[in-house]
């Protein structure tokens, strides 16, 4: 059992660079296909009317006049030495700014994820165990509502109620646990809706399976059956959903960061998009893609550990 797990791990890790290569190539070329050049944008932004010569000279400076493949190769070389290129706008190394801001975003994503799991797993279980109860109806209603809310609007509403009216939390910025609470709740609420509904449905299905009856007849207590067996069966197939969601949170955090002035990658990325600061955007895409693939690898491994039935044959 162990050996096949290692093999699987290695196989996936081997495909990681290929995926990243593909991603970076795609992003790079996607961004170069449009006639509007970054050089032009930068000149306009600095208040200079772009003439053909000024554009040409700026392009030469930024290395944009080289053939595309050469540009890509130069950038790739930088990435491999963990340098991520230089920002078109600030002329500073992208790595510094981007990597210094990333931890804040990751913190927000992870805390929301943990909060969501903490609330949705028990709620899902309880509402599945008591299908005609108020909790069940409440959960279902809440799920539909929470996935229909615009996250950023929810953030503002929370600020309005809890910060402005009730004065319980600071409205923005960072620095203490109190600062973290509202943004985390904002990001977590739609996810709680999704997870609880999914867990409830999966568990209700699982409770109809025959092994449960046999377990009772062997003298196992209800608590043991639910906690030890049903839970494992229910949650293991959901692991990929969890991983996917954590990855998506990294992207979704951007919007919430704007609401709360959270010092993550959000603001920096948005400005880079407006300024067509390609190296920043490319690096961002690459970093998120890497994180995403790693998270999915972890969940796939966990799934294989918990469910010995999954075979090697299917990959995607």
């Amino acid at each position, binding site marked *: 059992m162990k050996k096949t797990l290692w093999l699987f791990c290695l196989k996936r890790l081997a495909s990681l660079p290929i995926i990243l290569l593909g991603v970076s190539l795609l992003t790079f070329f*996607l961004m170069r296909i449009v006639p509007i050049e970054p050089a032009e944008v930068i000149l306009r932004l600095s208040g200079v009317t772009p003439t053909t010569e000024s554009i040409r000279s700026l392009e030469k400076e930024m290395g944009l006049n080289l053939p595309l493949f050469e540009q890509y190769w130069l950038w790739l070389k930088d990435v491999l030495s963990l340098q991520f290129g230089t920002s078109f706008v600030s002329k500073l190394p992208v790595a510094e700014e981007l990597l210094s801001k990333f931890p804040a975003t990751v913190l927000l994503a992870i805390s929301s994820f943990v909060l969501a799991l903490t609330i949705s797993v028990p709620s899902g279980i309880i509402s599945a165990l008591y299908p005609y109860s108020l909790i069940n109806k409440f959960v279902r209603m809440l799920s539909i509502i929470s996935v229909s809310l615009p996250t950023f609007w929810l953030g503002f509403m929370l600020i309005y109620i809890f910060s402005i009216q009730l004065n319980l939390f600071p409205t923005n910025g960072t620095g203490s646990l109190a600062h973290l609470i509202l943004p985390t709740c904002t990001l977590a609420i739609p996810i709680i809706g999704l997870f609880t509904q999914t867990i409830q449905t999966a568990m209700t299905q699982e409770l109809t399976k025959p092994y449960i009856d046999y377990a009772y007849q062997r003298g196992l207590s209800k608590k043991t059956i639910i906690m030890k067996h049903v839970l494992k069966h229910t949650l293991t197939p959901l692991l990929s959903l969890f991983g996917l969601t954590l990855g998506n949170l990294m992207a979704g955090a951007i919007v919430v960061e704007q609401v709360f002035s959270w010092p993550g990658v959000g603001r920096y990325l948005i400005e880079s998009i407006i300024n067509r600061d390609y190296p920043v955007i490319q690096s961002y895409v690459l970093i998120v893609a890497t994180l995403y693939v790693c998270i999915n690898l972890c969940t796939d491994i966990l799934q294989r550990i918990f469910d010995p039935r999954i075979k090697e044959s299917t990959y995607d």
Partner: protein
Amino acid sequence: MIKKICLLLLSLIGIISLFAPWIVPNDPYLIDTTKRFFNPSWQYPLGTDHLGRCIFSRILIGMRYSVGSALIIQLISSGFSLAIATIVTFRQGITKKIFIRLWDILLSFPIIILAFALISVFGPGLRSVIIALVFAQTIYYSRIFHNAMISLSEMNYIKAARVSGTTGIKLLKTHFIPHILPTLYTLLSLDLGKVILEIAGFSFIGLGVQAPIPEWGMMIDEGKQYMRQYPALIIYPGISIFMIVLLLHQVGVKKHAN
């Protein structure tokens, strides 16, 4: 019962969006700094915003942008994805391999990230958001349709039809399409709400619709600085988004259950 009410409401909303420019009580773009932050009245049913514009009128017109763009995105991406899925399913060789590899790569991380990259190419604006989201949805849907077509082609009645001589376009039209349609419809309607939310999100952070277009996400972005004293500027657009997406989810879910 609920489904019928929701469908009714949605059709009402559809009609209103269509005729919005003619039924608005005031000009949604008219700036009048003497009329800032009015309370709701007969003249201004939801009051005015920080530039003296009628909030209600802006919300009505905004409906067209939010819902209309989302519909356009879903329709275009469905069309593209069906076409791509058909080509990939029925052509062997290099095209197939390329697309399958492409899907593996593109779907291995949040598509939204790619949407960001695309928006940067075309510059902020509604057009960029539509292009980016069409791209993202097409990639996502084309794989789903491709998989559905593969499993359909394994079904016995398709094999029977092939044996009896039906091929090519005729096979597609009479046998495949009718069975893909339910999947298509479900995806389209379920994701409509999601797309509306994404458009609003992009506009909110400044990458989507640009001022003075009264898209709802945009309105929230504009109103956020006045939140303390005049939360109405944020509340009304937000509730509008919420209501429409909620209705869409209700209708989508119910239809799927059928």
